């Protein structure tokens, strides 16, 4: 088995309510650093809610309430003293639909650093090059960095979004919400390849509807169902000898 790694994110009996409905029913989950955690489960199982809770995007919906704790490096991210803007700089997020902002490729990538106050042109250019390289997009766009990001293809836009997340200097955790659901196999392969390299530096949480993708890239896998965490363990165990019958049914494609 893999050696014990430090815990990056820990959820303790974490609950999310949307109005009357309990979308997450007491999740307790330790996420180790420098690993890819795959989160699988049928739609409506709470995967995305869990992911969005980790950088507090759920805050934006007024009728959402939470209960329990999420610790990032042993600090409660929902504590009143915790700065949500700092949190989102440390915990970056990639959405299912690529959201290129309505500006040039260059400006898209340096958006985060600019917000943090980086002004030096030379420094910004370095950030753009390293981030785009890490997202496997550099070769395709290096000659047209001033073109609008909206004119890239879907797969390219998603990698642009990845580069934008990677450009943040404070980044420690990358959240991915079904990042490849609308992409072609080649773009998907490029993103998966980028992730396996990036885990040396970051903690990665990958929500996916594609169980094969979790099997390919995740070190650990968590299976969500109806707002419950059914099972969490090393990926090969979840996909071969899971403890729970429901996990077995899902990964073998019997439902979901």
């Amino acid at each position: 088995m893999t050696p014990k790694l430090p815990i990056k994110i820990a959820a303790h009996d974490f609950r999310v309510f949307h109005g009357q409905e309990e979308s997450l029913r007491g999740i307790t989950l330790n996420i180790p650093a420098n690993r890819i955690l795959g989160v699988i489960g049928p739609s409506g199982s709470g995967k995305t809610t869990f992911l969005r809770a980790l950088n507090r995007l759920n805050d934006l919906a007024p009728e959402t309430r939470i209960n329990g704790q999420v610790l990032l490096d042993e600090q409660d991210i929902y504590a009143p003293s915790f700065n949500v803007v700092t949190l989102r700089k440390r915990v970056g997020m990639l959405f299912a639909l690529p959201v290129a902002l309505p500006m040039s490729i260059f400006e898209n990538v340096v958006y985060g650093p600019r917000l943090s106050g980086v002004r030096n042109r030379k420094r910004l250019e370095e950030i753009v090059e390293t981030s785009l390289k890490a997202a496997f997009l550099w070769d395709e766009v290096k000659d047209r960095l001033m073109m609008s990001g909206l004119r890239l293809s879907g797969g390219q836009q998603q990698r642009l979004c990845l580069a934008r997340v990677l450009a943040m200097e404070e980044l420690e955790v990358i959240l991915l919400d079904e990042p490849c659901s609308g992409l072609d196999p080649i773009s998907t392969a490029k993103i998966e390849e980028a992730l396996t390299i990036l885990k040396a530096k970051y903690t990665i949480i990958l929500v996916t509807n594609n169980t094969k993708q979790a099997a390919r890239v995740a070190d650990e896998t968590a299976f969500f169902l109806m707002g419950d965490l059914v099972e969490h363990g090393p990926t090969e165990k979840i996909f071969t000898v899971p403890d729970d019958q429901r996990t077995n049914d899902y990964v073998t494609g019997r439902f979901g």
Partner: protein
Amino acid sequence: MNLNGEKIAKYALMTVAFSAVASLLLIAVFIFKEGLPFMFKVGLRDFLFASDWDPMAGKYGIYPMIVASLWVTLGAMLIGAPLGVAGAIFLNEFVPKPVMRVIKPTIELLAGIPSVVFGFLGVMVLAPWIRATMGGPGLSVLAASVILGIMVLPTVISISTDAIGAVPNSYREGALALGATRWQSVYMVTIKAARSGIIASIILAMGRALGETMAVIMVAGNTVKIPHSVTDPVRTLTANIALEMANATGMAREALFATGVVLFVVIMILNGVALSTIKGRVRRK
């Protein structure tokens, strides 16, 4: 029977629709027919760029009125556009949805207040205040600008609010997820994405300010003179038509139609620009 009913409904609606369009078209044709020959008789230079307006003496220079209209419209935009856009941003981004559902229709109701009421407020409250604090007659470019600036607020707010509301939520989330504060996401992403709609709202408001007549007559002072300060009284193009029409005959009457042509063309250009800005946004998507 049923089929006949369909046919009748179709042709009835068609007739109504066509007559609406036709009447607009006829008005336009009539204005041009009455105004254009005059322009060529007097000469475009003596009409558009001469400063003497004295129909009795055969002088038809509307230059002071053109300048006045531009000043008043510009002033109204300086006041109305920032207030309106700021209001739209505030309503969309910082006010809870249920509150906005009350406030937005209320603001749109402002558009239903008759302009004579705005003008009356200007005469009774604003003009005396300007006279007391800044000198001059009170009835002035400034008074007209302020009143018009308030009058165009519903146009600016309502169209800008729609444009900002149409910005996909994913843009906001995308910016926030990168560690933007609420305000940073607004000015770096939302406003950029809604830019064309906001610009269109300002241009439409400009057309409205340029065409407004009653409130302007009441507060602008109506002196035919090129203004040298914001406290000077002025007469706009619209005010000129309304004030002179009662006793205009012959050439003077044609001069007023020609003034109408000038207004018509300017407002058409503004609306055309506004429409193409809005369309441009749709095409880019």
